[in-house]
């Protein structure tokens, strides 16, 4: 939140509410605004809105701070004036932030109808914050689009509605109603076909309906092998399809935005971020996230080796019994296809700690990537995000 030396003197260090438990974390309440646009103008103290709890790190090491400059604002260095000259360089998060904001502005300037694919997950939350920063003090100059499969976690929908309202973003929600009315679900169709109808087709329909010719997505190259070669501006033909052998070369930060009417570009501002970068940024920027990311006791069953959250008895398969499991989601998808992990991590720093000791990649808990070897690449060719 603070960038020592780069900030005016009146800038103060906001409390890191990430240290609080998720239940107390007011992601959609007014007091959160101390972290956002209202903070930082001239509010001189932490007393406005943030409760100090015992052990709450305000100036201590856990406070989020200082990724814009190699010299972070910590008690031992904050008194010394920053020195410029040869020491000017950005930390890795500040470098990524600058690059992402450049990409967001570039696409917003060059395309007539951009839209941001908003999945409600942690990556979307980071992308949304970057968009707020890119166009501040203006509003985000494009709508957000959520493809709602109807199988999303209720906490996600609740978060989506309250948070987008809070920041004043325009939100479009789209469903493939036709398929849903015919009862599309992953149990009968399999994940591949279910995703094809409720996500890929719904997405392509929504893009066509809105006349959108550029769509921002929060995908990262480190997520999965087929994404490692994805461009930042990813060209899609008139069917919305991706051809890995026919991607435009991308040199420096000079992006080619020229397309014909029926074609479109997917733009990935977070291409160069890793999962750890995303969490560090959420920590450093105090970005609100869906509470499902925090560990707590939840009603669930263990199905085919993964933990599936249960919201109503109808969801139980024959012979299953609900139990209370302390768990959290590592990535957010649809309820039937996204497993939870056993975890004690109920704060962002604890999530980061857990993550860096993880031995498994984040999408491993998603059924869709494992249907067949290279299945993500197949989905992408068809137009999946």
């Amino acid at each position: 939140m603070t960038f020592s030396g780069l900030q005016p003197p009146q800038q103060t260090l906001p409390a890191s509410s990430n240290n609080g438990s998720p239940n107390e974390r007011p992601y959609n309440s007014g007091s959160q605004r101390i972290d956002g646009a209202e903070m930082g103008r001239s509010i001189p103290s932490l007393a406005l809105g943030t409760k100090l709890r015992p052990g709450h790190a305000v100036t201590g090491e856990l406070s989020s701070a200082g990724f814009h400059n190699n010299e972070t604002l910590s008690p031992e260095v904050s008194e010394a004036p920053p020195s410029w000259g040869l020491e000017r360089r950005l930390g890795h998060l500040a470098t990524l932030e600058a690059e992402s904001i450049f990409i967001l502005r570039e696409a917003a300037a060059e395309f007539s109808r951009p839209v941001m694919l908003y999945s409600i997950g942690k990556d979307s939350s980071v992308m949304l914050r970057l968009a707020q920063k890119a166009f501040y003090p203006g509003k985000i100059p494009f709508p957000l689009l959520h493809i709602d499969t109807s199988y999303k976690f209720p906490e996600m929908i609740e978060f989506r509605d309250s948070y987008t309202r809070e920041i004043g973003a325009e939100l479009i929600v789209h469903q493939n109603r036709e398929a849903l009315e015919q009862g599309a679900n992953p149990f009968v169709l399999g994940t591949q076909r279910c995703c094809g109808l409720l996500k890929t087709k719904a997405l392509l329909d929504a893009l066509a309906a809105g006349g959108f010719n550029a769509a921002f997505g929060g995908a990262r190259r480190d997520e999965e092998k087929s994404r490692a070669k994805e461009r930042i501006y990813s060209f899609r033909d008139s069917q919305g399809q991706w051809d890995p052998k026919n991607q435009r070369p991308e040199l420096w930060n000079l992006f080619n935005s020229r397309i014909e009417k029926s074609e479109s570009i997917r733009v990935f501002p977070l291409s160069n971020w890793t999962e750890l970068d995303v969490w560090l940024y959420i920590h450093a920027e105090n970005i609100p996230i869906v509470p499902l990311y925090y560990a707590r006791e939840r009603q669930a069953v263990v199905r085919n080796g993964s933990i599936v959250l249960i919201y109503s008895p109808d969801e139980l398969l024959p012979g299953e019994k609900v139990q209370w499991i302390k768990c959290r989601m590592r990535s957010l998808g649809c309820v039937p296809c996204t497993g939870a992990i056993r975890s004690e991590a109920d704060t962002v720093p604890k999530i980061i700690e857990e993550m860096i000791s993880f031995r498994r990649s984040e999408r491993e808990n998603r059924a869709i990537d494992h249907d067949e070897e290279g299945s993500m690449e197949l989905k992408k060719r068809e137009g999946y995000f």
Partner: protein
Amino acid sequence: MLTIAPAVRSESLAAFLKADLRKDLLRFTTAGSVDDGKSTLIGRLLHDAKAVYEDQVVSVQKSKINRSGGAFDFSLLTDGLRAEREQGITIDVAYRYFSTARRKFIIADTPGHEQYTRNMATGASTADLAIILVDATKGLLTQTHRHAYIASLLGIPWVLAAINKMDLVDYREDVFLRLQRDFLSLASQLGVPSVQCIPISALAGDNVVSASENMPWYAGPTLLEHLETVDFRQTHALDAVRFPIQYVIRPDFRFRGFAGQLASGSLRSGDALVALPSGQETRVKAIVGFDGNWEQTFAPQSITVQLENEIDLSRGDMLVSPSNLPAVSRSFSATVVWLHADPLLCGKPLLLKQTTRLVKARIPRILHRVNVNTLEHEPAERLEMNGIAEVEVETNQPLFLDPYTTSRATGSFILLDPLSNATVGAGMVRETYIADDASPEERDSASVEAELREVAAQERHRRHGHKPGVVLLGNRIGLAKSLERALFHAGFEVVVVNGSGVDSPVLAGFLTSLYAAGLLVVCANLSLHPEALTGIPRETIFDQASLTGTVNSDTETNETQVIRDALNFAEKLRLAPELQAGQKGSVK
């Protein structure tokens, strides 16, 4: 064998977070051929640096493919797409991410065989460092020359030569020393500023992450140690401000902010700047940020700037240091890498994107092609895919340029095909201006016939990119000079005539001649009226007296306004871009 757990548990979490936020980011590219063991090296690096997840390792163990000859095929950790797996080669640029306790890394993994020069150029364009693999059993090959050349061409300041497969030459020091000598000689020939040679075995793991016991004679860093410690900041980076305007933020009438990524230099509030192409001077009022205003910012931060005065500025324009201006040029030389299957043909209409500016362009001639294997210069009429050549470039609008060796951000451009929309070329600016000293025949022998005919007015217009015009400024000769500069910056062929004391009929005749030459004429003379210019259409004459009615008021108060009005007038004389694209001959 495969234990994967970053060694951060021993530290406290708080210390880890604090340290992690301080890390910087090194981007490097890797070049090598299918047989050099490049994928194996990257797989080994990621694996030994504990940057691979367990499920990824299991998936490689379960894979039916193992080309390595060892127990574990490290190259499968990085190969991604189906087509590649089927062919057993990496066919595109793949980006990999890992971090150590000291630094974060982005690897642009690119293939090294001949037909994929364009991919290596892509990976190199954003890299701070290049790893070039040399097979110790084979020595420096033509592809090694090509890789080193492309690395130097794309301005990568650091090159690391990994002398691989040392296990196959019995870890002999003399083999390493010979290859090191060869490589250093190549690097100095290419002007690579900094080189490090390291003897390794990617397959056996020698000197990749941990020091080799098989090569006690080698005292230098391991490959990872070098990556973690190299000071990759460009020591001679451009200090001057280059701030290409990307987006104008205007939420309401009270706020107007200019957003973009600072390409070079640093900015603080109060700093003086010059706006291009207008040449207008301004100062930074504030650098606005989401978390509060910034006192100072520096490249490559993305920022939003408020200026003290209202000036004309939009996307594609640039704010720069008054003491160090870029070239404002429509004709320059560059090295071009051709990226498309359809070859580069001289004179063909193209689009050019440089910073945030998109203009029409063409390549009037290829100076020479570079043979990437021998580095020899060859004459060429066209340039095929993966070809590299030095060319002349002309644009219909001025660009704000620095040589690529001075500034990657303002010295680089891409070329697009206006019909297919494909990205067809990438260029690096060499000379920011081309002196027009050659005769038309020398420039374009094909057009000799056309040159014999009388030059038509339209030909002049196409060459200049605008129709002629006259600006009458009363007796304000000082203003005329500022206006000349502004118009010149904006790409007009402009000339100033100090007409004080010259009789109106004489002056009118002189101005008409200059007009006939296709020029934009700025004239200072108290008594000359537009009516005296009988041969010149009234709509191509700008008379400031008719606008302000204050011919004699040589005050500064309305100077900015007059310059702005005159610039607006001149813009109407500019030809539509499609009329300029077919122009012949060079542009001064």
